[in-house]
C-alpha cells in the first residue's frame, strides 16, 4: 500500500500557488511561470500512473516542475543561438536540486544567501497558508500577497468588511504562529 494517494481534482487549489511561487523565483516572469506551472499539471496528469506514492503529491509535482524549468532555459538559450549552457544540479550536496547560478553572489542585490533564504521563506509562507481553511487562505492571499483593496475583495467574495477583518485576524494569528514554529 503506497503512503500517498494521488488525486488530481484538488491539485490547482492545493498546489498552484506553491508551484507558482517556486517558479517565479527562478524565471522572474509571471506569464512564463504560469505557463510552466500549467504544463507541470498537464504533465503530471499524463504520467499519473508513474506516481508510486513514495513522495507526497507536491514533491512529485515539484520534481516535474524542476525539469520543466530546465527545459525552459534550454529552449531560450538555443533560441538566442547561444552555445548550450550546461545547467548542472549540485547532486553531490544535500541541497540537491538547487541551481548552481543561485549560489553565485550577486554584488548588486542582496547576497545570494539572502535570496535563497527568501525563496525558501516564500515557500514556508505558502506552507502555512496551506494549513488555513480554504476561505481564510483565499482572503489572506488576496489581501496580503496580492494587495487587493478591502472593497474589491468584499465585492469579489460577497462578504462584508467586518466579516473580512474577522477572517484576516484569524488567518494572521494562525500564519504567525505557524511561521514562528517552523521558520524563526
Amino acid at each position, binding site marked *: 500500500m503506497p503512503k500517498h494517494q494521488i488525486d*488530481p*481534482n484538488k*491539485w*490547482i*487549489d492545493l498546489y*498552484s*500557488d506553491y508551484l*507558482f*511561487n517556486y517558479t*517565479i*523565483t527562478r524565471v522572474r516572469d509571471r506569464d512564463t511561470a*504560469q505557463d510552466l*506551472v*500549467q504544463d507541470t*499539471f*498537464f504533465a503530471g*496528469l499524463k504520467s499519473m500512473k508513474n506516481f508510486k506514492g513514495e513522495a507526497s503529491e507536491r514533491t512529485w509535482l515539484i520534481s516535474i516542475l524542476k525539469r520543466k524549468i530546465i527545459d525552459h532555459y534550454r529552449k531560450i538559450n538555443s533560441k538566442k543561438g547561444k552555445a548550450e549552457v550546461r545547467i548542472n544540479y549540485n547532486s553531490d550536496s544535500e541541497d540537491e536540486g538547487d541551481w548552481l547560478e543561485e549560489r553565485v553572489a550577486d554584488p548588486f542585490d542582496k547576497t545570494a544567501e539572502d535570496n535563497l533564504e*527568501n*525563496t525558501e*521563506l*516564500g515557500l514556508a*509562507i*505558502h506552507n502555512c497558508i496551506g494549513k488555513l481553511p480554504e476561505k481564510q487562505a483565499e482572503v489572506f*492571499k*488576496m*489581501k*496580503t*500577497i*496580492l494587495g487587493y483593496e*478591502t472593497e474589491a475583495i468584499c465585492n*469579489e467574495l460577497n462578504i462584508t468588511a467586518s466579516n473580512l*477583518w474577522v477572517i*484576516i*485576524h484569524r488567518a*494572521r494569528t494562525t*500564519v*504567525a504562529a505557524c*511561521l*514562528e514554529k517552523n*521558520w524563526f
Partner: protein
Amino acid sequence: MMNKKNKLFISCDEASHNCDKSQYNEASFLEKIKLSIHLLYCQACRKYSKNNSKLSTVIEGSNVDCLEIKDKQKMKDCFEKELKQQQQ
C-alpha cells in the same frame, strides 16, 4: 453609560481590529491613536501587536507571490477540461 468617557479607551477586540487594519495602512488617525493608548496599558495586545507587525515585515521582505485570482481560475478551467478528457 460610560460611552462618552470611553471613547478613547477601547476593548481588546477593537484594539486588535485596529491593529490588523494598520498592517494594511487602513487605520484612520483616530484609530491609531486609540490603539496606541490601549497598548500603553494592555500587555496582551502589545504582544499581539508586536507579532502582527513582525508578520507584516516578514511577508513584505519575502517576495512571496501567488497567482492572480482570474489566472488561477483560467488554469483551473483548462485543467478540468483536460481532466475530463482523460477520464473518458
